[in-house]
């Protein structure tokens, strides 16, 4: 569709609001503040409403061992905060951040606005692993993880590896082939998952629930188990933000700028896949966070990954914490799978972006 040609009106980039470095820094601080507030808010609400200062005291007490005698903290409150809500909210934040960063990375790597964290088969691989673990009743444990997350993590990585091997020709990986191989492998693995679901019998609802995505299984061991992957994946990608910027202009151009495009494609592929696998293994398949968040951030601040990556991480965390809070409170005491909430909110929002083509102009040629 033809796009309206914008008339350059001033010296500043009219398409992007946050174009100066200090505005970008301010924006990151603002996001951090919102994250903190939504974190406290999310911990406070639930079946039992908890006072916000109480929460802060409990956390403070836990971290520093400092006891405030003026406030009488109930053991039940302490229990709820430390063992139920805190791990859940933190996990939501981690998963949201991981998905958003992985989405931004895949969109950049594939130079495709429709890329999402699951584009090259992590989700279906993980789903296959998880459904196998659920259906077979596999009993397996490692570092506080049960069979399902371990199998999901492994399944996701195996799927990526398969796609990667399929699309490699000699020492080169074509991004286009990667995308197509991803679609094919996705379809094949999804069929296997359906087969499992079909024969799952009474465990069927468990498999389906897992695939809808949810954070109800959150516990501290999940966080300690996945946080290192998320952190490592994010740091690697952020460390090479410059390379990712150059790759946006095409592999040849990146190469002319002294960047080994072949190598960095692999680096980003591995790092983003680790992020997604870690997220999926603990929370199932949560859609739309990884697709929409990077788009929104690009709208505000342009495609520079030095800003896009941290801002996406923060926005993703905020979004998923919010969505998860909604999921567990909206029809309490029953919980909705959070994947339903993100898709319900994310899809219309994405459509809104599509309708206002001008706003996703950063992907279109004129």
């Amino acid at each position: 569709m033809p796009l309206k040609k914008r008339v350059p009106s001033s010296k500043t980039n009219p398409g992007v609001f946050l174009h100066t470095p200090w505005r970008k820094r301010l924006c990151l601080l603002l996001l951090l503040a919102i994250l903190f507030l939504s974190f406290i808010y999310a911990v406070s609400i639930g079946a039992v409403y908890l006072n916000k200062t109480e929460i802060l005291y409990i956390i403070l007490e836990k971290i520093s061992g400092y006891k405030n005698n003026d406030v009488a903290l109930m053991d039940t409150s302490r229990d709820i905060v430390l063992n139920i809500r805190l791990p859940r909210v933190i996990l939501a934040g981690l998963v949201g951040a991981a998905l958003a960063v992985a989405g931004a990375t895949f969109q950049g790597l594939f130079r495709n606005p429709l890329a999402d964290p699951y584009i090259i088969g992590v989700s279906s691989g993980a789903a296959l692993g998880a459904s196998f673990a659920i259906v077979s009743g596999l009993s397996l444990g490692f570092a506080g993880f049960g069979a399902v997350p371990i199998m999901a993590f492994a399944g996701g990585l195996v799927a990526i590896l398969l796609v990667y091997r399929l699309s490699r020709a000699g020492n080169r990986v074509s991004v286009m082939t990667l995308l197509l191989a991803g679609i094919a492998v996705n379809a094949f693995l999804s069929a296997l998952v359906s087969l499992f679901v079909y024969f799952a019998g009474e465990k069927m609802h468990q498999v389906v629930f897992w695939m809808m995505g949810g954070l109800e299984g959150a516990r501290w061991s999940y966080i300690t188990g996945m946080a290192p992957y998320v952190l490592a994946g994010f740091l690697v990608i952020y460390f090479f933000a410059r390379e990712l910027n150059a790759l946006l202009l095409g592999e040849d151009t990146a190469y002319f700028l002294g960047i080994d495009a072949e190598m960095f494609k692999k680096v980003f592929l591995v790092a983003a896949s680790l992020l997604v696998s870690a997220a999926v293994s603990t929370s199932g398949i949560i859609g739309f966070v990884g697709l929409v968040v990077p788009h929104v951030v690009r709208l505000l601040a342009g495609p520079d990954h030095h800003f896009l990556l941290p801002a996406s991480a923060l926005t993703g965390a905020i979004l998923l914490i919010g969505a998860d809070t909604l999921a567990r409170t909206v029809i309490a005491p029953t919980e909705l799978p959070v994947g339903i909430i993100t898709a319900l909110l994310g899809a219309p929002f994405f459509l809104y972006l599509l309708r206002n083509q001008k706003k996703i102009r950063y992907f279109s040629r004129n």
Partner: protein
Amino acid sequence: MGVRLNLCNLTVEYGAFTALDGLHFSVKEGAFVALIGPNGAGKSTLLRCISRILQPTRGAIYLDDRDLHKLPLKQLSRLMAVVPQDTAVDFDFTVEEIVFMGRYPYLGRLQKETPRDREIVQEAMQTTGIAHLAQQPATSLSGGERQRVVIARALAQEPEILLLDEPTANLDINYQVDFLELARKLNREKGITIIAAIHDLNLAAQYFDDFILLSDKKILAAGKPEEVLTPENMNIAYRTPVVIGRSPLHGKLVITVLKHWHPDKKGTLNAGQRVHVIGGGEEAVPVLSLLREAGFQLSVGPVTREDSSHRFAAYHRLPVITLPPFSPISDEYYRQHLDLIREADFVVIPSIPFGCGNMRNLEAVEEAISSRTRVLILEEQPFSLRDYSKGKAGAVYERIKAKGALLLPDKETLLSALEAFSAG
């Protein structure tokens, strides 16, 4: 000036298909080289090889004394920059952000840009004339502006060698010239060695110092324009007959692709008729061209080798009387001319100037005019404005008219008159 790039037996094969077959050549420091050749000759492959996107199957490229393909990538990107053919930008980077990427080869990991980097980026944008667009999103630019952004980025790399892949292919004529002016300025002022694959031979001839002509995966010729741009080479490489002349405006070579003449049905009706056209001066050529297309057999009056109608006659192998340069028409040439006129059914005098030098051509017409040899005069401009003989030619002209020559105001009427006469 030393030799910078040295290609030794460079061969590229894709499986059984050979894309480049044993290329040898060298490019001197500070050279301004056009890489020409027909589609599929291997221009892009060669550029991709020099820019290291492609690995040669055999042979090597040496930059100074080092194997280019073994140089660390980052080091190479400080020496050589590439402007690719496709400069489309998908993402909304600002112009400045894109130009700044040219500094990547110089930045250490996690190193912030220095004021020096910013200075170089500014200078690059000024050189290419896009400084005022610095904060614009690159997606909002026109093709010509975008290309300048990409050149600015290449300049920010501070390269010693610049590769341009079909830089003028997607530009309109004004941007094409601007672009090549800019490239030449960079070559002359900054001493950047430039190798450009280019399709437009005339533009290339106008700007470039050296040429490499690729044909059929090999180098057919390399060197100065006069050595490379010859009709023989062009015919082998492009399989098209061309005429190579010099532009009267800039003295550079001008390549004209020759038209294939297919006389139409109407043309064959005129085939038996012989028309003699008095040559000399630019105005004769359009008349010759028109009559040739209409199918008449032509001959051309006495002209020197330098005359444009002589070139026309030579290419179409028309009977022509060739005069020695700067000489009056001798009796012998006068007689030859008279014979040629008498063999013709019609004589056409185009709207050309006459002076003491070619006045005898008119006298020959006057002598030959008869009921068998009709004379048609094309007078697109009053004769007095074309008379450089102080009226002497004018007198002959008047006598020809008086003897029954037909006076015609424009080429179309001339053609219809000729056709009417030849149809009887």
